[in-house]
């Protein structure tokens, strides 16, 4: 199955004290139809900017400085603006973290969903309305006809997020970028939304790039996991592989700090230190100051990819050393 979306060496920079700092530093991934790739990382890792870069929605003063974003083989970064607008909401759709503020407060939600259709397809208003209602039913909004004409403030957080999903999927896009879709919701609602996304992924065969910091969410939905730290991927692989055999010290730390993996009564494990800001990135591996297994080369040289198993890669000197040692 060929990839629907391929990102190669994406680099997005922001200005800081006169220089331009790569908040997204050489990110590469691909997703196939019907697949879910989860990009996991703490806040500040650059994962949201990655998604925004795909659609070229990076807020100023940010700028995409390198790489390619291939949709069906065509590089979106070279497309002109009208072409980009055709892609947005039609081929690639995006949903955001805060349903509260992400919907226009003075326009009825149904009309906002209809807008997504009317922007990209030449259909009548009535047809657009029908499509919208159909999606409302599909995403499980109770009493969809009444809710269609409601204003955003009249809906709960969970319902608003369902509206966002409906709005994103009403045009049957091939790719859905979901930026922390459940973070702002209650745990019970989270589960429902995730379940919904799983169903829709199955039925519509949408490729999903799920951005999150919550490993629980990842566990529910992902086929492939990419762990991101300070603008770079540190580990990537199939879900089972990464969750059961984490190789990079950061991944290991993340998993170890999950409450479910800690013994009751004992203090929670936590990775020491804090995520360094761009002004404090060392020339080599950006995790080295917080890493218990760091060796001298970690500080100076950027670690290259180390193939652990087919499809499972880690970027770490320690892992590389271990590999070479094991192979000998």
């Amino acid at each position, binding site marked *: 199955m060929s990839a629907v979306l391929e990102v190669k060496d994406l680099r997005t920079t922001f200005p800081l004290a006169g220089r331009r700092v790569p908040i997204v530093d050489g990110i590469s991934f691909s997703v196939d139809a019907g697949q879910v790739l989860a990009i996991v990382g703490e806040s500040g890792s650059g994962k949201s900017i990655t998604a925004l870069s795909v659609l070229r929605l990076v807020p100023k003063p940010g700028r995409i400085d390198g790489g390619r974003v291939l949709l069906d083989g065509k590089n979106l970064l070279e497309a002109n603006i009208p072409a980009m*607008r055709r892609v947005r909401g039609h081929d690639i759709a995006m949903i955001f973290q805060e349903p509260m503020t992400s919907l*226009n407060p*003075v326009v009825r939600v149904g009309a906002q969903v209809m*807008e997504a259709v009317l*922007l990209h397809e030449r259909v009548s208003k009535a047809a657009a309305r029908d499509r919208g209602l159909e999606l409302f039913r599909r995403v499980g909004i109770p009493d969809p006809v009444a809710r269609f004409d409601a*204003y955003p403030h009249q809906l709960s957080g969970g319902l608003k997020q369902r509206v966002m999903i409906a709005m994103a999927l009403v045009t049957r896009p091939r790719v859905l970028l979901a930026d922390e879709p459940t973070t702002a919701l209650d745990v019970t609602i989270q589960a429902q939304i995730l379940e919904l996304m799983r169903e829709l992924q199955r039925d519509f065969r949408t490729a999903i790039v799920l951005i999150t910091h919550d490993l629980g969410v990842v566990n529910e939905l992902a086929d492939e996991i990419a762990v991101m730290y300070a603008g770079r991927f540190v580990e990537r692989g199939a879900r089972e592989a990464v969750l059961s055999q984490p190789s990079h010290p950061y991944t290991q730390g993340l998993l170890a700090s999950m409450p479910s993996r800690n013994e009751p009564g004992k203090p929670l494990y936590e990775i020491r230190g804090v995520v360094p800001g761009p002004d404090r990135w060392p020339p080599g591996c950006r995790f080295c100051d917080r890493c218990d297994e760091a060796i001298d080369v970690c500080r100076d040289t950027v670690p290259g990819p180390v193939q652990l198993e087919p499809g499972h890669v880690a970027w770490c000197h320690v892992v590389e050393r271990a590999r070479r040692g094991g192979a000998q």
Partner: protein
Amino acid sequence: MLAYVVRRLSYGALVVLGVLFFLFVLFFAVSTPDDIARRAIGDKAMPEVIEQWKINHGYDKPKWPGPGQWSDNLLVEHYRRMLTFDFGRSDADGTPILDRIAKGAGPSLALTLPMFAIGLVIGLTLSLFVAFFRETYIDKAGVFLAVLGMSVSVLLYIIAGQFLLGKVLKWFPVSGFDPAPGVLWRFLALPVAVGVIASLGSDVRFYRTVFVEEIHKDYVRTARAKGCGEGRIMSRHVLGNAMIPVLTNVVMVIPFLFTGALLTEAFFGIPGLGSLTVDAINANDFSTLRSMVYISALLFVVAQILTDISYTLVDPRVRLE
């Protein structure tokens, strides 16, 4: 909705009563009837003349309610008359005030309504344009020009307008007013133009800020992600949300439509309520002044209530609790 309107109206009524009290204190306590009399007939007048004048104008009663004078005092008199629009006669020339107000309303509106409408349309259009090009040179130039415009006193605009366009270029009459339909616009063109240009600077600055703030909100990002073009975003998404703060600004101007642009009327010889006020100042005509302030306060309160009600039309989040 009804309960809300009733509540708003009652609060408004309370405010009007408060305004009247304030006016009373201002016109009768801070500046006493004796002062008014002296200002009207001269400092050197004999005490008897002053007394007579006060009696003639109804200022001879005691000021505050007290035993034996619960209803026959200036305070109650003031309230009664103002609330029944019994404004009496001008201190200066004795003409009935209410008549003059009624006659002056027409010319004032003829001036301020076009000024308001044209100013709003031009202001919004320019700000939308500048906001669309935010952070570019067009934006920076636009903002600078707006600040420039804000820094010039209205007086200078009027003088410049009159002098350059009236006297030097002779395009328009320098002043005057003729209600005849075909001729009216010639007398109004200059004052309306001056009024619009004078407020354009601060309006554009304000509206632009509102628009730019809206553009940075999350729902605009969602619209872009759906494939909305920048133009559509401005007109369909931002404008609707920006209306809320813009509306406050706009509706509050309504009382001025009546009280008339004081200076513009006076400078351009338009016999509206503004001229009436200016004449009252020059003649120390307190009773007219008092009535004018009261009328505008009343209009203000009405305008505030209208604003609140109009919010519900523009912002669905505001449900009349």
